[in-house]
């Protein structure tokens, strides 16, 4: 038996590999693994469940004298409830973003990826762009689900102000999008899933719990929370998201340096 190697009939495209082809390739990889769908689904479940529980908890506390003393409010903005759930939901986002990078290293597929397009800068941008855009869009849906669940759970104790609600939804989407990109940076720098997960947890949650005083508001997790909840005690609302963005840029920078310098 002789092996016939059918030749590729299509002519070489005039343009060489570029940002568009990198995006197409990354997108195909992104949607063709189950983990993408599982982590997206779990983000939605966490948001719906989290907001509902937090809302019901708020209502329940109204009949506890001690709780009323701590927080005398009888009504709460739905956006605040959804914002608090986001602190939980973000870990589904982190898992999703992490796998986009770490699965390539754990399987060795990164070497296939870099053979198809050896431009590492482009690879980092393509991966970051896709996860950032997807997370922003799903973040809007998550925000909507969060406020709807909060509204339902608050049972008439929710403050529903269209402007505030819209801002909260976009704030949640923006924050989650930045967290996903931050995770890509960390994963590119560390390559292992365990290291990436623990470092990201440390940045988003650990520092918040370990640090004291005003500095805690400059950690990405707290700055994001202030941004979503419109807490302007320490800085303006835009400043909150700028802090998160700076953290994101720093981790992406670290990821870029490692990707460029280290052997694949």
């Amino acid at each position, binding site marked *: 038996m002789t092996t016939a190697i059918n030749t590729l009939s299509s002519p070489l495209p005039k343009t060489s590999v570029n940002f568009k082809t990198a995006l197409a390739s990354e997108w195909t990889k992104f949607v063709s693994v189950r983990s993408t769908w599982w982590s997206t689904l779990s983000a939605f479940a966490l948001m719906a469940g989290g907001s509902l529980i937090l809302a019901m908890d708020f209502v329940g506390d109204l009949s506890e004298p001690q709780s009323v003393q701590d927080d005398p409010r009888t009504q709460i903005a739905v956006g605040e409830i959804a914002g608090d759930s986001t602190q939980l939901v973000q870990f589904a986002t982190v898992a999703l973003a992490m796998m986009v990078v770490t699965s390539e290293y754990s399987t060795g597929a990164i*070497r*296939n990826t870099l053979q198809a397009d*050896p431009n590492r800068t482009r690879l980092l941008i393509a991966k970051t762009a896709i996860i950032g855009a997807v997370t922003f869009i799903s973040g809007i849906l998550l925000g909507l689900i969060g406020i709807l669940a909060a509204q339902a759970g608050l049972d008439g104790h929710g403050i529903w102000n269209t402007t505030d609600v819209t801002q909260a939804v976009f704030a949640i989407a923006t924050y989650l999008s930045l967290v996903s990109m931050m995770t890509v940076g960390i994963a590119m720098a560390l390559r292992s899933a365990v290291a990436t997960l623990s470092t990201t947890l440390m940045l988003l949650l650990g520092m918040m719990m370990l640090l004291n005083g005003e500095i805690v508001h400059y950690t990405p997790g707290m700055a994001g929370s202030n941004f979503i909840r419109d807490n302007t005690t320490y800085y303006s609302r835009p400043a909150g998201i700028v802090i998160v963005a700076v953290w994101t840029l720093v981790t992406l920078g670290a990821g870029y340096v490692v990707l460029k310098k280290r052997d694949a």
Partner: protein
Amino acid sequence: MITLNRLTRRYGQKKVVDGLTFEIQSGKVTGFLGPNGAGKSTTLRMVLGLDKPTSGTALVKGKHFAELNHPLREVGALLDAKAAHPSRSARNHLLALARGNSIPATRVNQVLDIVGLHDVQHKRAGSFSLGMGQRLGIAAALLGDPGIVIFDEPVNGLDPDGVRWVRELMRSLAAEGRTVFVSSHLMSEMQLTADHLIIIGRGRLLADAPIGDVIARNSLTTVVVRSPDSAKLHEALLRHGINVAPVNTGELHISGTSAEQVGDLAHEVGARVHTLNTQSASLEQAYVNLTAHSLEYGALQ
């Protein structure tokens, strides 16, 4: 064509690849041999731009790999059969690579047919056997119909049919004028497929020659004589400065000469000869001789 010029890679103090200079020609199957840890995979990764050389260059068609405009259309490589996301289907694995190089989806169907994975294309790569993984890796390498193909141990995990298939595939790729560069630890496999051999040991080049020359040059053909008058013959051979190794009574192994010369000499000294033949060494022996030398050399340092 692949060109290496004084390619060197150091990890700390250790030179894993040490000043490799050679050229891989098109239209041939070039075997890349060396013991484990000789630096074969590191060399291949540097050719593909995955690892950075400490010094020297590895060029593909005169360019660094990263400068190729359509990498998969110029170089196809199989480095690791398991280098696919386990939960991604074989088809999607290939499709993602194809889209990254503007290769139409119809070509994905073609390569799936070529490697015989058409029926399992929607199965997850993680469910594949090692042999199927090799086929998927080969499909990825052929995706861009490249002029250069690089295979790292392509027959690993394949059944005899698969081995024969890969052998024929490599031959036909070379016959089509492509550059075929295959690493293997299976000397017997190289003997059947390679036209040219590059042998390295401890990161250094040991041989770069057509396969016939490698065998001829590195393993002297041995003349085997059985004679009841072996002592007489032995003495005569020594007088002529010929290297003789007596094996057991009546049997001599003689190197550095021909059967004709030994026969004539036996006639001259009147030694009866019962057996006279030549043993030409296999590639296996040539390889062992070469790499043993490199290890000795390394140990002396």
